């Protein structure tokens, strides 16, 4: 038999449903392997030829045109003999007769069918989600809608702070809209980024003028004929002319399901990309493989390769799943993540931060292999890490320099000294003060400088935020050689950093750092989230610097300040209600007695600070105990706080035959003014009504001793381990002056003492003369310190017990999660 004389065997018919990236990539692969095997028909629901969907963001941002993102124009289909039917959605698969029927009524028979219907955006089912002006971000039509809206300006709200949402937000911002991103979780792109990188990204977007609201739960999209606003569950309403829904994608299984194919979250396929019908294959975002669905391009291409090989007749090709990596396509924002960077048992974090360049890198290593990576600001080594991750490369040989990237290890490229040496004289070293390398080197040689402090004094380099300190030290070493002895290092805050408390505080102020992750990034912390030494200190410094603005981080507080009671050796707590100036009443005492009975509180004791301490309260009883005390008008005594504890008083002129002034009344006024404040360490005040000093005012952080002619103010005393009698600060004539001095003294201590430094060592360190200069000699400075104190107090005088007793704050702190067994 001769093949020449027979009519050619009719070719098999392959129908592809879906003209997207996965389907067409499969065809490209197939044509390369078996160009003549099939008669191919492609249906596309969109009116366009095959385009690069992941480049829609640059199209939105105006960086690319549609023509530039077309992958295969119509001529390609023609040249390969493929019949392309665009704008015609396939509606029915008739598996019995092996044919598909499209919206137009056209029916095409197949021998093999490839479903590549992709995914659809998830539209959250809130009222108003179908209003005109609400769009997804999936196809070119969505981009056109957005561009049309953007042309009119106005406000856009993007729901979803993931990859797509942020790209949409950036594009709309570039196009001139006011953009707000709403994100349900507390970190942007939380599935791809860790908290540190998420925070950096948020700042960058905010710097570009995009408003980001995290923890924002959408309740309703408001509008009559078209969208006008988005309302959140907390009641906040954001005006909107355009709402982009970018909360996620869902495999488009409509067609597969209707055809009776096995579907889970996606159309289920085996390792050969074959569905439950052997004649039908499926690839792309619409499939579910080994329980996984994918929304990134790399896995789709891997699937396409396997599907094409199978269609070409291979019996071997198999898809076994993908490890994915992510890149954000926002110009100027480099973000990369891959693999599992949540860490876990036996994992090791390698963290690198370069604040000057805005770089954060974290590589997670387990058993000498890379498990995951997050890169922000410098992603050029993303591919390298990803390759080693996929290959399971042993990283032990490069472990020490792994975090510096692939190019490290050559001729000292990353040696900081060599790097500084290589800089031209015109290179700016100190960004704060605009000092370049040449100026510093000249100053060192011509003025004979030999220490960092001298360089700071003469050039101002590294005198502000201090982030160039390392480079200035390198310059000293380079210029002086052995003549540079190095710096006598002040004690760093903790093992997470080389910075001292003072350096960190200065940086918080000058660099306007406003969150713990911010500080850790800019000051190049060596740990992902600090430790029990630095976190409470940072939380305090931020709270002090940005009153009303900084959101307290309860996770960075010691347990006593987190649950507003004092932990005892057996894990129970003690509770001390406030007794203003040491005064109490029958009503308060009765309420305390009732609480003691009701909760079977084992020990009741009078404290040294003139109030009553209830010992042995079970943690879960705390809110109920507080509710009862609140009901009798009592609030937290902050007996657990690095803050104002008590104002001890004697009875004064009201009852005492020696009393010169109303010391009790003044004590109450002082306590009313200062309660609720957070300070570097605990603060105790006292007011004695005469020089007999029954309130022991001269061993307090601030003590007032009343005399006939007015009030003596004593500071820096301590009755603890190292008893220190106060120093006399000043004598004043009126109660108003006492209050102003107290406020300004508290604020000076708050702003300048180091965390966990009591006033006694602080006054000794800075010297009484310094305190006098700031408070006594400088009336204007005193007034402004006092004003800052009172401003800060306007945010801090809410009873923490009441918020917890009514269940509105930290409810989870007081109840076990579960009881089992």
């Amino acid at each position, binding site marked *: 038999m001769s093949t020449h004389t027979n009519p050619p065997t009719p070719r098999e018919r392959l129908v592809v449903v879906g003209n997207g990236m996965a389907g067409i990539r499969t065809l490209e692969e197939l044509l390369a392997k078996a160009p003549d095997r099939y008669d191919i028909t492609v249906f596309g629901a969109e009116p366009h030829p095959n385009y690069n969907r992941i480049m829609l963001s640059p199209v939105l941002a105006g960086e690319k045109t549609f023509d530039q993102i077309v992958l295969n124009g119509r001529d390609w289909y023609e040249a390969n003999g493929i019949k392309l039917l665009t704008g015609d959605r396939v509606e029915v698969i008739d598996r019995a007769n092996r044919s598909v029927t499209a919206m137009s009524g056209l029916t095409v028979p197949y021998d093999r069918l490839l479903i590549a219907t992709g995914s659809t955006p998830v539209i959250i089912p809130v009222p108003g989600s179908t209003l005109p002006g609400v769009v997804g971000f999936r196809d070119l039509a969505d981009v056109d809608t957005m561009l049309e809206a953007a042309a009119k300006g106005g406000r856009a709200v993007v729901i979803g702070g993931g990859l797509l949402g942020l790209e949409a937000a950036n594009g709309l911002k570039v196009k001139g809209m006011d953009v707000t991103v709403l994100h349900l979780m*507390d970190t942007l792109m939380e599935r791809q980024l860790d908290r540190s990188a998420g925070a950096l990204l948020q700042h960058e977007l905010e710097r570009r003028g995009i408003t980001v609201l995290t923890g924002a739960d959408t309740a309703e999209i408001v509008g009559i004929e078209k969208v006008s606003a988005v309302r959140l569950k907390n009641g906040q309403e954001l005006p909107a002319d355009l709402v982009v829904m970018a909360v996620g994608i869902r495999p488009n299984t409509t067609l597969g399901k209707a055809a009776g194919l096995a579907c889970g979250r996606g159309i289920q396929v085996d390792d050969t990309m074959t569905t439950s019908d052997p004649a039908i294959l499926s690839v792309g975002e619409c499939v579910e493989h080994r329980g996984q669905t994918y929304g990134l391009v790399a896995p789709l291409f891997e699937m396409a390769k396997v599907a094409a090989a199978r269609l070409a007749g291979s019996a071997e090709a198999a898809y076994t799943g993908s490890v994915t990596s992510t890149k954000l396509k926002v110009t100027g924002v480099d973000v990369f993540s891959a693999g599992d960077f949540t*860490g876990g048992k036996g994992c090791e974090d390698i963290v690198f931060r370069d604040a000057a360049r805005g770089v954060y890198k974290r590589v997670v290593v387990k058993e000498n292999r890379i498990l995951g990576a997050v890169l922000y600001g410098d992603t050029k080594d993303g591919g390298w890490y990803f390759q080693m991750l996929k290959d399971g490369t042993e990283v032990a040989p490069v472990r020490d320099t792994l975090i510096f990237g692939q190019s490290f290890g050559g001729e000292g490229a990353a040696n900081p000294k060599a790097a500084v040496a290589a800089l031209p004289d015109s290179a700016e070293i100190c960004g704060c003060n605009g000092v370049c390398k040449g100026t510093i080197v000249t100053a060192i040689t011509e003025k004979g400088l030999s220490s960092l402090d001298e360089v700071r004094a003469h050039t101002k380099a590294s005198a502000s935020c201090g982030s160039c300190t390392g480079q200035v030290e390198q310059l000293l070493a380079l210029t002086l050689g052995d003549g540079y002895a190095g710096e006598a290092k002040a004690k760093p805050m903790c093992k997470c950093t080389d910075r001292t408390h003072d350096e960190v505080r200065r940086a918080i102020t000058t660099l306007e750092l406003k969150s713990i992750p911010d500080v850790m990034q800019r000051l190049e912390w060596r740990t992902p989230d600090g430790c*029990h030494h630095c976190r409470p200190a940072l939380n305090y410094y931020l709270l002090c610097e940005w009153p009303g603005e900084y959101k307290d981080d309860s*996770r*960075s507080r*010691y347990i006593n300040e987190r649950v507003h009671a004092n*932990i005892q*050796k057996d894990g129970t707590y003690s509770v001390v209600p406030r007794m203003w100036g040491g005064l109490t009443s029958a009503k308060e005492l009765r309420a305390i007695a009732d609480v003691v009975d009701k909760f079977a509180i084992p020990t009741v004791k009078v404290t040294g600070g003139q109030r009553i301490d209830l010992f042995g309260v079970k943690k879960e009883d705390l809110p109920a105990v507080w509710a009862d005390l609140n009901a009798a008008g009592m609030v937290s005594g902050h007996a657990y706080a690095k803050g104002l504890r008590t104002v001890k008083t004697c009875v004064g002129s009201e009852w005492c035959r020696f009393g010169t002034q109303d010391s009790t009344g003044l004590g109450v006024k002082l306590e009313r003014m200062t309660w609720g404040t957070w300070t570097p360490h605990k603060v105790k005040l006292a007011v004695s009504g005469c020089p007999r000093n029954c309130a022991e005012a001269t061993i307090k952080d601030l003590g007032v001793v009343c005399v006939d002619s007015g009030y003596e103010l004593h500071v820096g005393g301590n009755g603890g381990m190292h008893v220190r009698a106060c120093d006399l600060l000043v004598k004043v004539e009126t109660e108003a002056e006492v209050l102003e001095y107290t406020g300004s003294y508290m604020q000076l201590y708050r702003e300048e003492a180091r965390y966990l430094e009591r006033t006694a060592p602080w006054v000794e360190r800075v010297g009484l003369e310094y305190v006098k200069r700031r408070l006594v000699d400088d009336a204007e400075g005193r007034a402004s310190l006092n004003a800052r104190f009172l401003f800060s107090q306007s945010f801090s005088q809410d009873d923490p017990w009441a918020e917890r007793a009514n269940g509105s704050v930290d409810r989870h702190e007081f109840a076990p999660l579960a009881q*089992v*067994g």
Partner: protein
Amino acid sequence: MDQSISWITVGSVEDIPRQGSRVVRTAYGDIALFRTVADEVYALEDRCPHAGGPLSQGIVHGARVTCPLHSWVIDLASGEAVGPDEGCAGHCPVRVVDGAVQLGLAAFRPGCGGCGHG
């Protein structure tokens, strides 16, 4: 190991504050579940090997917790005290399945004071 353990669901990851802890009451005493900044979940007996302090009340940093009573630092994965202190807290297998936290309580291993290993 998984085969022989029966897993008990005690809540969801979201119930545990990030960098925080929640307690589960069990026949073996209180078990503290920790969630790290990277969303890893660990389970330790809620007793510091040093003086029995409730670890659940400590500050969580990295994959460690600092005991609230005397600031011993305990490794969450192994329960062991971080040097120079020696001792280890009891630990319990834990896993997260679709956001649900599950304890393998039957495989709970009590800790010890001062032994230096689990």
